C-alpha cells in the first residue's frame, strides 16, 4: 500500500501526463469541438502546461532552500574560512527576496540592486574563463597528430575570420570559414544530434515506464529494503 502511494502512483502520473501531452500532438481524439476544431485533449493540455508553469515557479525557491541548509550548517559549525561568507550569502538572499517581493521585480529599487551586484557579477563570472582559455591555447593547442592538427587548423581559420580586420584584409578566410561551418561542422554536429535525440527519447521511455527513477529523489526505507 505504502509503496503504491509513495512510488507507483507518482510513476503512473508521469506516464499518464506524458501520454496525454503526446496524444494531443499526434492524434485528434473525439469528441472534437465543432467551432474550434480542437480535440478534447487540447484544453486539458493547456491546463496541464499552465499548472506545470506554476509548479516550476514554486520550484524556483529550491536554490535558496538548499543554500540555506548548507550555509546554516557552515555557520553553526564555524567552518574555518567559510562561515563569515555564509552569513553574507544568506543576508544577500534575504535582501534580494525581500526587496524584490516588496517593491516588485521591475521596480527601480530592485533594478538598482540587481545592476549593482548580480548583473555585474553574472556578466563577469563566465567571462573570467576567457583567461583560462588563453593559457589553454598557448599550452595545449598543439599539432601532435592528425586529429589535433585538424582541430588546430580549423580553429585558426575560424579565429582569423572572427577578427573583423583580418577578414577584411584576407577575404579568403571568410569563404573558408563559411565552408567549414556549412560542411564539416554542420555534418558532424548533425551526427551527434541524431545520436543525442535517440538518447533523449530513450531516457524519456525509461522514465515513463519507471526504469529511470532519479526524479523520485531520496528513497524511502521500504524502497531501500526492497
Amino acid at each position, binding site marked *: 500500500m505504502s509503496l503504491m502511494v509513495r512510488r507507483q502512483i507518482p510513476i503512473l502520473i508521469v506516464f499518464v501526463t506524458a501520454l496525454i501531452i*503526446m496524444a494531443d*500532438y*499526434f*492524434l*485528434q*481524439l*473525439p469528441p472534437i469541438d465543432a467551432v474550434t476544431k480542437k480535440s478534447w485533449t487540447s484544453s486539458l493540455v493547456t491546463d496541464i502546461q499552465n499548472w506545470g508553469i506554476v509548479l516550476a515557479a514554486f520550484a524556483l525557491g529550491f536554490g535558496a532552500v*538548499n543554500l540555506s541548509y*548548507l550555509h546554516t550548517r557552515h555557520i553553526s559549525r564555524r567552518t574555518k574560512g567559510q562561515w563569515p561568507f555564509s552569513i553574507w550569502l544568506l543576508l544577500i538572499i534575504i535582501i534580494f527576496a525581500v526587496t524584490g517581493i516588496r517593491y516588485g521585480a521591475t521596480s527601480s529599487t530592485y533594478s538598482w540592486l540587481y545592476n549593482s551586484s548580480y548583473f555585474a557579477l553574472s556578466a563577469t*563570472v*563566465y567571462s573570467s*574563463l576567457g583567461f*583560462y*582559455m588563453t*593559457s*589553454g*591555447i598557448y*599550452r*595545449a*593547442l598543439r599539432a601532435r597528430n592528425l586529429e*589535433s592538427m585538424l*582541430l588546430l587548423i580549423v*580553429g585558426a581559420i575560424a579565429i582569423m575570420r572572427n577578427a573583423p580586420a583580418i577578414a577584411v584584409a584576407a577575404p579568403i578566410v571568410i569563404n573558408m570559414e563559411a565552408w567549414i561551418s556549412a560542411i564539416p561542422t554542420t555534418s558532424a*554536429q548533425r551526427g*551527434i544530434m*541524431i*545520436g*543525442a535525440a*535517440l*538518447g533523449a*527519447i*530513450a*531516457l524519456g*521511455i*525509461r522514465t515513463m*515506464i519507471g*526504469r*529511470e527513477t*532519479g*526524479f*523520485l*529523489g*531520496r528513497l524511502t526505507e521500504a524502497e531501500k529494503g526492497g
Partner: protein
Amino acid sequence: MLVTGRIFALGMLAVLWIFIIGGMELAKKKLPTFRRLPGLDALPEMMGRATEMNRPVHFTTGLGSLTESVAPQLVAGLAVLGYASEMAAKYGVKIIYSVYAAQVMPIATELMRDAYIRAGKIEEFNAEDQIRYLSGEQFAYASAVQGIAERERPAANIMIGPFYAESMLFSETFFRIGAIQLAGTARGYQIPFFAVVCDYLLIAEEIYAAGAYLSKDPLQAGSIRGQDLGKIVALILMFVGVVIYAFGSNALIDLLKM
C-alpha cells in the same frame, strides 16, 4: 484521427519504443557486447604513470545531481569511477574523488569500497581521505579542485560526467601541473575544451556506453542496444534517401513528411 504531417513521427516513436524496451528485456538474458572505447584503454597507462611517479590519480564527475536531467551522465561517471578505483587499488595508486553533490557520497563510498575489495586491497582504502566533499556550488567546487591539483599534483586526472563552464578551468589546471587526462561529457558545449586540452577523450554518447559497459547494468546496456538499432534505421533512411534523391525520386522525403 492521426494528424497529417505527424504520422511518420508517431510511427518512428513506436518503433523506437519497441527497440528500447525490447533491448532492455533481451539484455536481462544476455548482455550485449560493446565496441572498444579507446578512451578507456588509456586507464592502465594513467595508473602506470601514477605508480611510477608515486602520485595520486584525481577523479571528478562534474556538477549535477542524481535528481536532474543530467543524472545519466553522472551515473556513467560513477561506473567509470568504480572501475578506475579497482585498477588503482591493484596498481597501489591512491585515487581521490572530488564530490560535488552530497547525495553521491554514500554511493561513491560503497562503489569504491567494493572496488578495493575486488582488488583484495581493502586495508588500503581510506574513505575520508579519498572521497572529498568539496562544495555544492560551481565555482567554489572548481577552486577547491584547483587547490587539490596544485597541492597534491596528481599524475593523472579523470573527468567523466556533466561538465559546465568549469571544464576549461579543470583541464587547463591539470594540464599545467603535467597530469595526463581522460575526459568525457555529453554536454556538447564543453567537449571542444576537453578535445583541445586532454590526452584522451570520450565523445558525447560514448560516456553512456562506457558506463553501461563497465557497470554491466542490463537496463542501460539494453537501452543503448535499442538506441543503436535506431541509429541503424537512421543510417539506412539517409543512405537510401540520398541515392534515390540523386536519381530524381522524392519518395523517401515525402514519406518522412507524412
